[in-house]
């Protein structure tokens, strides 16, 4: 798990290799396109096959979310 003050990302290797699921809980509405862009960019960069990713957002900036996703998937690679 990687956390910032306003963001928590939980990564679990529980899915088939060709699948990746990202669940986002956020109190802010109206940012669907931004979330889609961040997740799409992350999936292209990191190829996070097999990962179930759960996000608790408290208003984190998109670049912070992206950075934490990249850091998290790198940590999962090491294990």
């Amino acid at each position, binding site marked *: 798990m990687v956390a910032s*003050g306003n963001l*928590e990302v*939980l990564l*679990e290797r529980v899915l088939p290799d060709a699948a990746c699921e990202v669940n986002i*809980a*956020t109190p802010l509405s109206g940012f669907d396109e931004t979330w889609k862009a961040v997740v799409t960019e992350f999936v292209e960069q990191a190829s996070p096959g097999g990962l179930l990713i*759960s996000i*608790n957002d408290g208003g984190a900036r998109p670049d912070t979310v992206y950075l934490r996703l990249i*850091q998290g998937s790198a940590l999962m690679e090491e294990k």
Partner: protein
Amino acid sequence: MMEDAATSRQASWFQATARQRVEGLLDPNSFTEFLPPSERVRSPHLQLFDLPSAFDDGVVIGRGALDGKPVLVAAQEGQFMGGTFAEVSGAKLVGLLRATRDHKELPQTVLLLLDSGGVRLQEANAGELAVAELMRAIVQARCAGVAVIALVGGKAGAFGGAGLTTATCSRVIISEQGRIGVSGPEVIETNKGLEEFDSQDKALVWSTDGGKNRRLIGGADAFAEDSMQGFRAATKSLMAKAPAFNLETMQAEHERLAARQERLGACDDAVSMWRVLGIKEPEAIRDMDSKSFGVLANSIKEANHDAR
């Protein structure tokens, strides 16, 4: 877990997250978490307020080893909702203490890494109950021979219920950045006025609630440098000699507190208390480094006692 620099023995305790502190404090790879984030034991209340929840509700609990000795650990995440006491986070703390009270096969030393402004207002009733249950569980665990050590050095300090909790522990370790109090500075100012306590006067706030004053007037038993190693060394030295908890201990504590009130009650700030305690240059305390301060604090009679 996290990048190594944040959990190295030299890393700052103040800057670290709850998880980093647990990793930096304990022996490498010795920690096993109870109810980890993957269990998703979350607050059932926060979503009613459209607030983000956390997969661990801001409290990390588990078992591990420090210097080869088994310990139970609980760490509050001060950056999640202010490290507050609430239904789930409180139940995790209470459950840990009750478990060690009732099961002798569990480690009989509990380290509480407090970092909290008090009760979570969105779950106020559950939070107040959690504080009361935690204090009771600590006292019962101590009666059963368990050593409960509080470590205070996080950004939220230990205020409200966390401040009360420190007073029920066997031992308290604090760093310069650590603060212990019941009402926080803003609360005192709001209720009693600016003349009573100016919460914007950082020097006043830190000299009153901060680690150096708490150590000198006997509110903490050990002063730790702000690092994983600092807290590790202080914990190691106190783990070996947690005091008995019985009627004599309580009577000695009451006598100590009465004597403190008599000796320091008329002082109107920390520096004047330090002067009464026999410190020759009390103004120099604020800028003193941790090592020199630790030596000085150990030489002050008021700060060393077996009570509490």
